């Protein structure tokens, strides 16, 4: 299996990098080398892009407007709020050199760590349907490995740049329609299909994070990667057996991979005073449009490029523990929420706040 092969190679590369530090090995015992450099400390290795649609972060999008979803009580756009609650919890890490909390790896140093990403993603219809139903809630958790290399302090025209990889060997996503939404959908009778979208996946991404201009105040992040459904015995993103109507079935998925790219630019405010800095964040995914009613599993699904753009300002305050970002968001593509991933040409836009801790 591809991801297991990669896991072995990843471990070998990490071990090789440690072994390739002869001075350190001469100076330290094996015990000291294996001793963690940090535990339960924040370190900025491959932080998620603001536009990453299912990152384990704290985001509130409100007010927002959304396309109507399949089996909604009424047609037309609705006012919604879309929230993500979660965190990438840093568990343990190893690095060499200077390692103040909250910072990326030092120049010419390698860092590696294990994170526990845990998040909840909810969207609620606030306007058009009876009892303002929660449309969908998605739950995610897994294991995340991140590695980062600090490029020389001045590398070409960049300052304090980094390259990194993020590998999720296994994670789980469970999705759930809202109970009031399900009750409202009784008007569709047996035509209403409640699909159990629930799966495991692995993910691999690469990152280049250069900073430009004086003191590297223009901070850039470039990302690319793939997400792959896995460990589900060939079943795919969702079960064939419907939750509702009982006894009903749908066609299993065929395309179980979703590649993505992303980029983010942030112009940091004056370091003396802190303040507001503009940012632009973009995520683009080649997503699978779930095809529940295809003739057979071998029939390929449609795919649709799905774009998520955030533009706004980030408030940097020296010594503060919370960094808020205020933004306008525009999303277009496959509906990212649970079983609604069968919906293409979905649109969501509004005002939001991202809180980083």
């Amino acid at each position, binding site marked *: 299996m591809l991801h297991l092969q990669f896991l072995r190679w990843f471990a070998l590369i990490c071990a090789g990098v440690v072994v390739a530090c002869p001075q350190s090995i001469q100076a330290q015992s094996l015990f000291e080398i294996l001793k963690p450099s940090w535990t339960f400390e924040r370190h900025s290795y491959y932080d998620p892009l603001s536009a990453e649609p299912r990152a384990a972060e704290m985001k509130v999008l409100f007010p927002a407007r959304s396309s109507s979803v399949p089996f909604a009580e009424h047609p037309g756009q609705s006012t919604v709020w879309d929230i993500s609650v979660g965190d990438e919890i840093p568990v343990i890490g190893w690095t060499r050199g200077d390692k103040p909390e909250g910072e990326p790896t030092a120049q010419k140093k390698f860092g590696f760590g294990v994170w526990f990403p845990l998040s909840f993603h909810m969207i609620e219809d606030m306007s058009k349907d009876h009892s303002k139903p929660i449309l969908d809630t998605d739950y995610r958790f897994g294991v995340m490995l991140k590695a980062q290399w600090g490029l020389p*302090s001045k590398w070409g025209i960049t*300052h304090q740049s980094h390259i990194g990889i993020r590998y999720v060997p296994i994670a789980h996503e469970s999705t759930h329609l809202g109970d009031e939404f399900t009750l409202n959908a009784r008007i569709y009778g047996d035509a209403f299909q409640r699909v159990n979208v629930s799966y495991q996946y692995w993910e691999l991404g690469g990152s280049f994070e250069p900073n430009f201009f004086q*003191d590297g105040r223009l901070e850039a992040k470039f990302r690319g990667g793939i997400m792959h459904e896995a460990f589900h015995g060939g079943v795919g993103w969702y079960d064939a057996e419907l939750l509702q109507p009982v006894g009903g079935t749908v066609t299993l998925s065929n395309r179980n991979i979703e590649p993505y790219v992303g980029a983010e630019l942030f112009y940091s405010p004056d370091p003396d005073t802190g303040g507001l800095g503009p940012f632009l964040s973009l995520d683009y995914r080649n997503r699978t449009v779930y095809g529940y009613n295809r003739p057979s599993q071998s029939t390929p699904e449609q795919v649709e490029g799905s774009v998520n753009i955030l533009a706004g300002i980030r408030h940097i305050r020296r010594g503060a523990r919370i960094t808020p970002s205020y933004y306008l968001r525009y999303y277009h593509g496959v509906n990212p929420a649970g079983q609604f991933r069968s919906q293409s040409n979905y649109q969501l836009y509004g005002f939001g706040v991202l809180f980083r801790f």
Partner: protein
Amino acid sequence: MQALNYSKYDVLTMFRKDNGSVNPTAAQIEQFDTDLFDANDDTLLEIMGEEGIDTRKDNKSTVLLYSRFGAGNLSQRIRSACRYFNNTQKL
């Protein structure tokens, strides 16, 4: 303890902040000092020069210590620390 790259009490202060150990060995402090030098010294020299600060050991140590409390990336924190250093010299 061997000669350090930065002033002893500044190094001890930064070690205390980053590591929390109340009983460090001389070797740990020396290694910490070396790590500080490898990660910060070239940026310190460059930005202190631009800000007109003599790059003596005691000045570098003070600026480096100040930079541990700033916001932004390493260059931004050192730039801000240099300005704080300059602005507080005649107080």
